[in-house]
């Protein structure tokens, strides 16, 4: 099958997948006890007042009708209105997503640029002190609670050494015109280099904190995949031909070893998009993670529904991209 056909087929599958996700989320959030009216009024409202508010919010309609209303809206790209802020869900989400994407990219950059080299080194220096250090390092990365690590980073680099800001995306009171919502990009576009420096500095600690888990996974997967590839016949042949070592590693081995690494990266990007909740909370990062946590606690149904919908969409797109990248890296893969 031709790759374009494959992409088209995968894109068509997005529709039933999203439909399934939305249906599932809708009924799960309505099944758990507690609704927005109770959150707002308890304990001050009488049962009649709570009922009146439910009516006002349309929560007294049958579930099937509520779902139908939502899905009809969604088809028209209208994900409803947040119960608590009264603003369109789409607006709420697009206001928060740039922060999360900026943070995810920062973390990804660190994880890839540090993780792959460490993995390669560990594989090359198998069973040496360097290898053991890399393994220990990556074990620490997955074991350290992100929450604790974040607070420690703040304590050391911000509160004690005063090298970096404690939390947030930008120093309060510093002016930066909001064009795209991506502060780094906005600073570049407006030529505001003071803000650019400030925003970069704010990005460092949360990125490191968020990078630890993907970084550790990348080190381990790169290492084992490299070991596997290095024992292949064609590597032996290359060595026998007298090719220089680093050329064997980077030209012949690494490229082939990258397939599982890219799978891991893809999955990690997806989970960072929706799962950076702890990092966002520790660093007061106004992203999608803190948004969805508040939405769940408040039972802000349209907002929960909307965020999950968008995250699902992103996961699907990332998976598709990963599959396409496979074909690019390994020409033997055909769709």
């Amino acid at each position, binding site marked *: 099958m031709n790759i374009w056909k494959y992409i088209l087929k995968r894109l068509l599958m997005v529709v039933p997948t999203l439909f399934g996700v939305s249906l599932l989320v809708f009924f799960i959030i309505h099944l*758990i*006890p*507690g*609704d927005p*009216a*109770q*959150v*707002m*009024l*308890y*304990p*001050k*409202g*009488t*049962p009649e007042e*709570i009922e009146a508010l439910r009516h*006002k919010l349309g929560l007294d309609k049958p579930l099937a009708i509520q779902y139908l209303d939502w899905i009809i809206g969604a088809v028209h790209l209208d994900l409803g*209105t947040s*119960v*608590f*802020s*009264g*603003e369109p869900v789409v607006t*709420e989400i697009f*206001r928060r997503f740039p*922060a999360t994407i900026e943070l995810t990219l920062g973390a990804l950059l*660190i994880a890839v*640029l*540090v993780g792959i*080299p*460490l993995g390669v080194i560990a594989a090359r220096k198998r069973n040496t002190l360097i290898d053991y250090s890399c393994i220990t390092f990556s074990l620490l990365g997955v074991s350290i609670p992100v929450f604790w690590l974040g*607070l420690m980073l*703040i304590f050391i680099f911000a*509160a004690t050494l*005063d090298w970096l*800001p*404690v*939390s*947030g995306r930008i*120093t*309060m*009171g510093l002016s930066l015109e909001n064009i795209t919502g991506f502060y780094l990009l906005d600073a570049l576009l407006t030529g505001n*280099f*003071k*803000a650019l*420096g*400030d925003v*970069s*500095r704010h*990005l*460092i600690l949360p990125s*490191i904190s968020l990078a630890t888990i993907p970084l550790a996974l990348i080190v381990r997967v790169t290492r084992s995949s490299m070991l596997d590839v290095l024992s292949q016949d064609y590597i032996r042949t290359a060595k026998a031909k007298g090719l*220089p*070592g*680093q050329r064997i590693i980077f030209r012949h081995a690494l490229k082939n070893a990258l397939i599982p690494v890219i799978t891991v990266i893809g999955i990690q990007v997806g989970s960072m998009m929706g799962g950076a909740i702890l990092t966002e909370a*520790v660093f*007061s990062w*106004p*992203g999608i993670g803190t*948004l969805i946590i508040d939405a769940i606690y408040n039972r802000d149904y349209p907002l929960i529904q909307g965020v999950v919908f968008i995250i699902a969409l992103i996961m699907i797109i990332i998976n598709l991209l990963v599959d396409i990248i496979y074909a690019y890296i390994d020409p033997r893969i055909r769709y």
Partner: protein
Amino acid sequence: MFRNKKLVYIVVLLLSAALVMTGCGGTGSPPASGEKGKDGTLIIARSTDADLIDPGFGWSEGDIDIIFHIYDGLVKFKNDDLEVEPALATEWKVSEDGKTWTFKLREGVKFHDGTDFNAEAVVHTFKRILDENNKYYGVVQGGYSYLEYLMADVVEDVVAVDEYTVDFKLNQVFAPFLTYMGYYSQYIVSPAALDKYGAKFPQNPVGTGPFVFEKWQRGEYVQLKANENYWGEKPKIDTLIFKCVPESSTRLMELQSGQVDVIKALDPGQLSKVEEDEKLELLSVPGANLFYAAFNCTKEPFTNQKVRQALNHAIDMDKIVEVIYEGSGTRAINSLPPTVFSFDETAGPYEYNPQKAKELLAEAGYPDGFETNLYTFIYARPYVAKPVQVAEVIKAYLEAVGVKVNIVTNEWATHSDIMDNMKHDIGLSGWYDIPYPSNFLKAMALEGANTGYMPDELVEMAKAAWATYDRAEQEKIYKEFQHKLYEAAPLIPIAHNNYTAAISKNVKGFELDIIGTVRAHKAYKE
């Protein structure tokens, strides 16, 4: 040669990694430390962002703090006893029959958008919520209106008598009326801004207050600037920022490193750290709130008054305040916080006496105790920082007198649902509100406590107290009310949580009040 090259490669890789880890900041010069929290800018870090900056519809702590700075009421609170003094109204009087309040408005006051403050604005402020024929009714899609909650049952009409005189026509004598007018939900909004922004008014608030709304970066911060044309004392700072910092440890480090000037809502464990830090000052005020355990009085065995009294005797509340509130609170005597008018210290408390508890249980027919469920919730609320730990301590005390307790923990929304539908046996809950006795006694202890205990006698007493402007008369009724509630014991009053904030020592004139809101109107930095 070959080996060397490889080494070079590794070194380059490690260097580039190190660069990424530490070097991104190279793109710009860091702000000089003198710039942090520039003079004239006061930054307050709170756990939440605002939702709706609109007096009519805002209801969370995140909203109320900000509304008090952007808006003014006809009157304002003079002190913690909630005595009022003139604000947008210069004088007022109540009619002979007590049902019409007439306010003379301050002349020459302008909203932040430049339009005039007048009687028309007052009328629309109230009628946009109370009168569905008003042209601004339903313009803002807020779910819940506190103004409606406080006023809808009593206010019949609001009439502009002339440009600067307004009449409020009530359907009864309503004791808390003037006090309520000083509360945020009755603050006056600009009709011109309602015209201009429509449904987006809460995101573009326009009032007459000491600060003007400037910018709201959702989830991040709300920025206000001083109102140069303020009718009263002008603010001493230029910019006021409410920054959202959800994690309490991060908040404290923000303050310690000087990146913010004030932090709100400290964890009990942080209090001593702040006190020890010579650059910081701790603000702690006895809060007008109540944390309690509600009995489901419609269910066995809590239909029995003796059982309820027994369990009140079984728990050492002082210990809870000492250990879990870490001293940052006071034990509750009865349902009314001691800071509130008419509080009667003789109406309670039940002394800690496990022996007596056992005797009462035996008298009630439960010599061997019984088994019950105690419902609690995760995460702090304004009246308690550690609700799960309180439940665990209560369990230990109750089991000591033979009552077997199963703790059921939920997050808040689920917990509200259980309490609301009276599915609990004993449920932990709390209340914080404008500290008028009727709120804590009638609205909370009878209607809102989820005890199912609502005898006609007490309801009538609460109504009688409402229907007189005579403070002495009110006090008499409320004191008797407290005694009756104490006897009946439909709930276990546990504690009143202190509201806390920490400020840098160079911040002066900053206030934290008994309803837990911050006031930066008169704040300045040395």
